[in-house]
């Protein structure tokens, strides 16, 4: 059996690398993005092979799914808003291509040599995590790391997400609210059919995270898909009056996470040091709120611009009430 697995691994590895190369070299951008999505899914598959189902889920949902949607949306924008004097991409001379490929190859060889020389298979944090699991409040190690041992990193990761949505709103401020393309009845029907299912799956992923692969990020990404469907099917249209609620939703996860981290110091503990008896509750609370924030934020990142009342108005006078 081992031999067949090795063949599988090799095939998968070659496919992953080939897809990466293809997505860089295909002339058509749409094809490149599609190739990239396939690349992401195969990478996720490889990560499952490496016994990392959580990461594979996250990569498939966020790294490939949401990212792919974002890329396609941008491609759509770039292709529909046509430029008259768009600069033609210069043809790349063969010599340059060969040089690039050679550089790429050398880099790979160098890094791979260093990689091959390094010890693999530990020791890492295995024992430390195993020792600490019993007082972490959850049963699933990855969740324990994310929300307890290295919760500070995770908090900052949510902060990055928050920074992104603020930056995106900032960048696209005052842009006219171009209507999403009409996708027809088939699509609407599909959206209605799948929406409840996705909500169930997302919530399930969140819930299962404390004991099995899954958690806030994967759940959030799946729930964000709900947002994407709603936006694309125009079942939900963001309005200026929703901005206040949106802002609250964006900061909800970060705020709750940080607040809990600080509030636990009340009992003479360190920040992030959850009292053991409430650890599970607190972690679930944080995860729940973070999931909501992630879902809303990812959907907002997809939507892009901040919903403003009258887009044609000058930036200064457009600052209407947010309530």
């Amino acid at each position, binding site marked *: 059996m081992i031999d067949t697995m090795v063949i599988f691994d090799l095939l998968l590895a070659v496919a992953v690398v080939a897809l990466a190369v293809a997505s860089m070299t295909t002339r058509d951008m749409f094809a490149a993005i599609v190739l990239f999505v396939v690349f992401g899914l195969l990478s996720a598959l490889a990560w499952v092979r490496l016994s990392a189902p959580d990461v594979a889920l996250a990569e498939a949902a966020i790294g490939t799914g949401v990212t792919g949607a974002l890329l396609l949306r941008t491609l759509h924008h770039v292709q529909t808003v046509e430029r008259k004097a768009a600069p033609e991409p210069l043809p790349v001379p063969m010599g340059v291509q060969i040089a690039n490929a050679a550089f790429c190859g050398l880099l790979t060889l160098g890094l791979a040599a260093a990689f091959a020389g390094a010890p693999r298979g530990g020791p890492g944090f295995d024992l430390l995590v195993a020792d600490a699991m019993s007082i972490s409040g959850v049963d699933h190690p990855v969740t324990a790391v994310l929300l307890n041992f290295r919760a500070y990193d995770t908090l900052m990761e949510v902060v990055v997400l928050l920074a992104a949505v603020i930056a995106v709103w900032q960048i696209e401020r005052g842009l006219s609210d171009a209507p999403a393309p009409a996708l*027809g009845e088939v*699509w609407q029907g*599909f959206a209605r*059919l*799948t929406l409840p*299912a996705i909500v169930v799956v997302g919530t399930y992923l969140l819930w299962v995270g404390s004991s099995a692969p899954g958690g806030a990020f994967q759940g959030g990404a799946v729930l964000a898909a709900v947002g994407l469907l709603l936006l694309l099917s125009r079942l939900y249209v963001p309005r200026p009056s929703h901005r206040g609620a949106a802002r609250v939703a964006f900061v909800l996860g970060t705020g709750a996470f940080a607040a809990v981290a600080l509030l636990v110091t009340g009992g003479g503990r360190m920040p992030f040091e959850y009292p053991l008896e409430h650890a599970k509750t607190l972690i679930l609370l944080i995860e729940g709120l973070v999931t909501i924030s992630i879902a809303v934020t990812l959907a907002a990142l997809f939507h892009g611009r901040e919903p403003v009342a009258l887009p044609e108005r000058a930036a200064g006078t457009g600052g209407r009430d947010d309530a």
Partner: protein
Amino acid sequence: MTPLELIAGALIALGAVFFIAGTVGVLRFPDIFCRLHALTKADGLGLGLVALGVGLLAASPGAVVRIALVWFFVVVASATCSHLIARHALERARRERS
């Protein structure tokens, strides 16, 4: 190998054949509509066969239900996506003609 496993293996292999056929179709067919045809038909069937085969091997009834659900949603999604792609291609062709 039990007979069940044998049947399951055969179903999965047959599914794989459909996948390959679909892939060849995508690569070889001349325009987008034909390619979509190859893709959705072959993949829908292929996935169904694979799901059936895996379902035979599944340990619990719960898993079987989940596999069935996966198959159902994939088929619905791929049908919708194909529809959208076809629509888009049609619109673009119309736009280019005018």
